[in-house]
């Protein structure tokens, strides 16, 4: 299994995860729907996970893979809180568009 992963050069993993990370950032900055913004954030976190796993496989060191599990757990907790806040905002405004968040000066 390990050899299968390491057949692909490490640079490819770095470029791929960089591309996914950039897509995530662009999504956060341009999308107007709060749930899509959170999905973009998940994309960014997953690109980090991919990068850590790739490094971990190349160094044959399992520490980073454990780190990935922790990142997943923390990300799940954060997104759960984010969705709860979105529900609270939806009750006030009947919308999950980021543009309705204009009570405070941006």
């Amino acid at each position, binding site marked *: 299994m390990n050899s299968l992963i390491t057949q692909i050069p490490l640079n490819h993993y770095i470029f791929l995860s960089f591309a996914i990370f950039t897509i995530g950032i662009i999504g956060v900055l341009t999308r107007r729907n709060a749930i899509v913004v959170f999905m973009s954030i998940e994309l960014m976190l997953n690109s*980090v996970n991919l990068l850590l796993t790739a490094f971990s496989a190349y160094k044959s060191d399992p520490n980073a893979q454990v780190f990935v599990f922790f990142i997943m757990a923390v990300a799940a907790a954060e997104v759960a809180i984010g969705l709860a806040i979105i529900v609270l905002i939806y009750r006030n405004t009947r919308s999950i568009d980021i543009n309705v968040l204009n009570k*405070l*000066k941006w």
Partner: protein
Amino acid sequence: MNISPKEFLSSLGADIIFLYPEIFLSLIILLYTILYLFLDRKSPVFEFLFLAITIGFSGYFFSTSMNQVLKTIAAGTFEISPINSFWKALLALTLALGIPLFKAEKSHSNEKYPLQYLFMLTMLLAGFITISARHWLLFFVGLETISICSYLIINFYFTAKAHESALKYILFGILASCLMLWGISYIYGANGHLYILKENNCNTLFCRLGYLFCLSGLLFKVTAFPFHIWFADVLEGASYAVGALLSIFTKIIGFALLYNLLSSFSGVLAQDTRLILAILGIITLVIGNFSAIKEQNTKRFLAYSGIAQTGLLIAFLACSTPSNLGAFIFYLIIYTFSVWGMFYFFQRHENKESTLLSSIGLLLSMVSLAGLPPLAGFLAKIQVLLGIWAYEATPVYVFKTLLVIVLISTLVSFYYYLRLPISYIKNNLSLPSISKENKDFLAPTQNDIYFKLSSLIFILPILLLFLVPNLINDYISQIITTIP
């Protein structure tokens, strides 16, 4: 660096005695949760327990920090040292000082408010772990636990604005922590392990880029330049108590971690990081000060003045050496008392409970933050300015520009810190803007003696430490001698 689980457990078992404070605090949090489920939500037990724990931990860490020796336990992932104990003591003290504000600001639904204390205790535990962490995993999990608790605690104000500011905070927070994780993965790729060593130097751009990204998570916590935008919005939506918590507790954690990280850098990495911090400090100072001048909303004003203070401290961090760390610590202690005081007296005013004592208290704490003589803030600021003055580094023009900007912004800050209390006294105790909609959620008039007592807690230290700074200076100099 690879350790088998068996070795790790035996190493942990041998040094478990050093982890007793953290284990004890975890048990207390469990107890608190059980009490919350079974006790009446308005019972005073919650406040007393919270106060006892925070003061107890503060006293414990202050008293034991002297005779501790530098030691890493749990297979090098957790560090015990006098300076770390000092940071932990300061964090516990910060939470203990917040009690008068949280008590005066009963949230919309009274039943929920013990949960705020529960989240604050969790933040304290996470702070203890993060400050001692010598492994990126502990570091990341601790920092995120603090963030998650702060996202939750904003919502307890139960207004549309509070929810909006919570959403903005969580979006910015996750973005910053994503950048930090990206940095950690680069560092892992370059170093091949996840430990935060005592000596970090890297010659490749790849690795330096990793550390740069990694700083972003901490710069978010201390509201420095690229990540300062959230602060004014979040503070405007949050209540005074939570706003003060965000501008003191998370900032102290951020600065402690920034200092720990910066002191472990060496060679080219340290030079680069100092240069970047100096430039960020300049920009943060300019943005904070000039936004604070024209700001009319009280809470946003508090946020921008907080950003300006961050700029000063970031600038000082860029020039920090082990010998002038004392000024940094002294500044943070004074900052804690002054900012809690400032938020407390503003809250009194918004509660329509302002008296002569509260307006004088506001004047004193803001003058202390501005750094004028009869108060301890003067001593703190002059030490910081002298530290920046004495620092010699290679790109001279950057650090001299830094000094000039710091001096100018100190002058500017006199204007906006004095403007509010003076107009406050002049215009028959009225402030530029007080939001009317929040008034329903505030507590009715409190006991007068209780108010005087809590005002004294905030005012007395900043007066006393100006007259006899040796009260803490001896302690600080002893702490500093232990740093290698």
